[in-house]
């Protein structure tokens, strides 16, 4: 007993959580110990069970599926033993467990419908085979009750639109399966019963009558069901739309509104411009669905240089006009090239004094060319201090290591241009 209770804890986990709130009503007439272990051992009927909660209570106690217990009662009930057992269990389980059932009644519906149908079919079969313990005077009323039970459950489930929808969703396809199985069993049972009562020739017309009845039911309930299903899908669509709007609002709030607030607060025009520029870029990439933050694996030439240019722009507040043409596979060499180009952009931003920097990237047949151009003060290329690490290491050195080359042209007073070439045939990545 105790062992089983420990075993039950895993499946009972969720219920233990809800048990944290003292179940007020269950305490009335229950003076047992507060020890949770103790309460586990006690057999209690479950509140919200199908009939009296006996099956659900037993199922919870012994950690099995409620439907199995119900099925067992049904099968045994047909021999009469089950009915006695059920009554005995009901008497024994006087206390009511108010903890919420994990498999609550409405969500259980497909199972219950299936159970009702299965019972009906089973009874018909047994009756046909002459195995039923119930006399005829009992048999038909019980049959009607069982069948009615299934139908009522079905309708209840229809009233609960979402559950209806969920009954047809993949995760509860077993529910649908159960119903289908039940229907088959009933059909077989009915035919078996009819086959005994009437001749085979009449069977055809019976089948016809059955089809008519089913057709009539479909006509009566079809529109209703379809309206309900429609409602469900409409509701879902509206929810999606509302979610989208919420997303949009959240994005605009986080980005545009915040930036506007920052711009209002800043006194530095260059900072305001840089904020505006960054926001523009971000909003643009969002609107035109270029992923704003990309995973490394699907970086393309465009986004690689975009992020480099954006970074420099943010740090140095000089707008960079970037144009990328063509497409090459981005490997380590190309990333190194982008880093060198970034350094060239930084230099132009810091030293040229130009109001804008143009960057043109062209990738074709594995070869990548980059031009970084400014119309700033320019400098004498022969007079570059050999100690200028930026040019020597970051640009020329990097390019040399990946088998590319860097050319810098500049005339004092007329800006500068850095040309970087990464040929298609290049050394293995450093």
């Amino acid at each position, binding site marked *: 007993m105790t062992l089983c209770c420990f075993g039950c804890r895993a499946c009972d986990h969720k219920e233990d959580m809800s048990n944290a709130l003292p179940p007020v009503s269950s305490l009335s007439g229950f003076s047992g110990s507060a020890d949770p272990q103790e309460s586990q051992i006690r057999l209690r009927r479950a509140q919200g069970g199908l009939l009296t909660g006996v099956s659900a209570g037993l199922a919870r106690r012994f950690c099995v599926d409620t439907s199995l217990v119900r099925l067992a009662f049904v099968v045994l009930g047909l021999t009469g033993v089950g009915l006695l057992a059920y009554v005995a269990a009901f008497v024994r389980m006087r206390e009511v467990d108010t903890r919420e059932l994990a498999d609550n009644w409405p969500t259980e519906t497909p199972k219950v419908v299936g159970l009702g149908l299965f019972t009906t079919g089973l009874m018909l079969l047994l009756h046909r085979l002459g195995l039923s313990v119930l006399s005829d005077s009992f048999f038909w009323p019980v049959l009607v009750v069982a069948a009615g039970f299934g139908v009522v459950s079905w309708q209840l489930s229809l009233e609960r639109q979402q559950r209806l929808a969920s009954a047809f969703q993949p995760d509860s396809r077993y529910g649908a399966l159960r119903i289908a199985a039940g229907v088959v069993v009933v059909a077989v049972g009915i035919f078996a019963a009819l086959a005994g009562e009437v001749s085979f020739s009449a069977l055809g017309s019976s089948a016809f009558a059955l089809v008519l009845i089913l057709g009539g039911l479909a006509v009566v309930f079809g529109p209703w069901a379809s309206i309900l299903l429609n409602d469900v899908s409409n509701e879902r669509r509206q929810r999606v739309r509302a979610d989208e709007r919420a997303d949009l609002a959240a994005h605009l709030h986080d980005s545009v509104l915040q930036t506007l607030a920052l711009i209002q607060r800043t006194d530095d025009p260059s900072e305001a411009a840089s904020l505006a520029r960054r926001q*523009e870029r971000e909003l*643009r990439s969002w609107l*035109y*669905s*270029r992923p704003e933050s990309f995973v490394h694996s699907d970086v*393309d030439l*465009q986004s690689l240089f975009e992020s480099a240019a954006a970074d420099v722009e943010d740090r140095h507040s000089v*707008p960079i*006009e970037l*144009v*990328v*043409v*063509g*497409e090459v596979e981005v490997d380590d060499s190309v990333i190194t090239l982008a880093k060198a180009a970034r350094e060239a952009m930084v230099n132009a931003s810091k030293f040229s004094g130009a109001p*804008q920097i*143009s960057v*043109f990237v*062209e990738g*074709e*047949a594995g070869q990548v060319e980059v*031009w970084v*151009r400014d119309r700033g003060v320019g400098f004498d290329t022969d007079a570059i201090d050999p100690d200028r690490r930026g040019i020597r290491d970051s640009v020329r050195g990097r390019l040399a290591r990946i088998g590319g080359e860097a050319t810098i042209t500049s005339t004092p007073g007329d800006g500068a*241009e850095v040309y970087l070439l990464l040929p298609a045939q290049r050394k293995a990545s450093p």
Partner: protein
Amino acid sequence: MSWQPRVVIVDDHELVRSGVKSSLGDAVHVVGEAGDIGEAVAVILDTNPDVVLLDVHLPSGTGGEVITQVHAEGSDVKFLALSVSDAADDVIGVVRAGARGYVTKTISGDDLADAIRRVAEGDAVFSPRLAGFVLDAFATNEPAPVDVELDQLTNREREVMRLLARGYAYKEVAAKLEISVKTVETHASSVLRKLQLSNRHQLTTWATKRKLV
């Protein structure tokens, strides 16, 4: 400036219109403004300006529709697209409709005035980005087109486009290639014509796909 081109500004935001107007100063003479397609067509046909500054996105449609409708009326007014969008299908779409150039709203007032004058004189105006799109659209590694002459750029045109994409002004392109500015303008115009007339690659489809890259 001795000669002031007569300009109509079409943009659905009044703030943008007045901003553009003030940044142009007295480099141009603004003869009309419009905020939507119908209004724009009426104003343009009424005032017959030298150049129309046209926003790509208008309420109830695109700038391209304005161009189509005005040209359908027999007018040969020149259009310069001015937009905040630099998405490829917007750019290509409006240029295909007949715009003589495309600049983004981040352009400086002086550059814009210069671009307007250039368009008024019959030239094409390429922003670096538009030049980039052209290079992309006419990439060499595509299968041979049907109309070879129209659907390919000459080497010289390609060179000009690359320099424009690198941010060179026309006169800088001319100096670099050691040709006259007039020749550069001729190349640019013929590229624009190819862009507008070419069937190659189903350009607009290409542009839309490109956007998603």
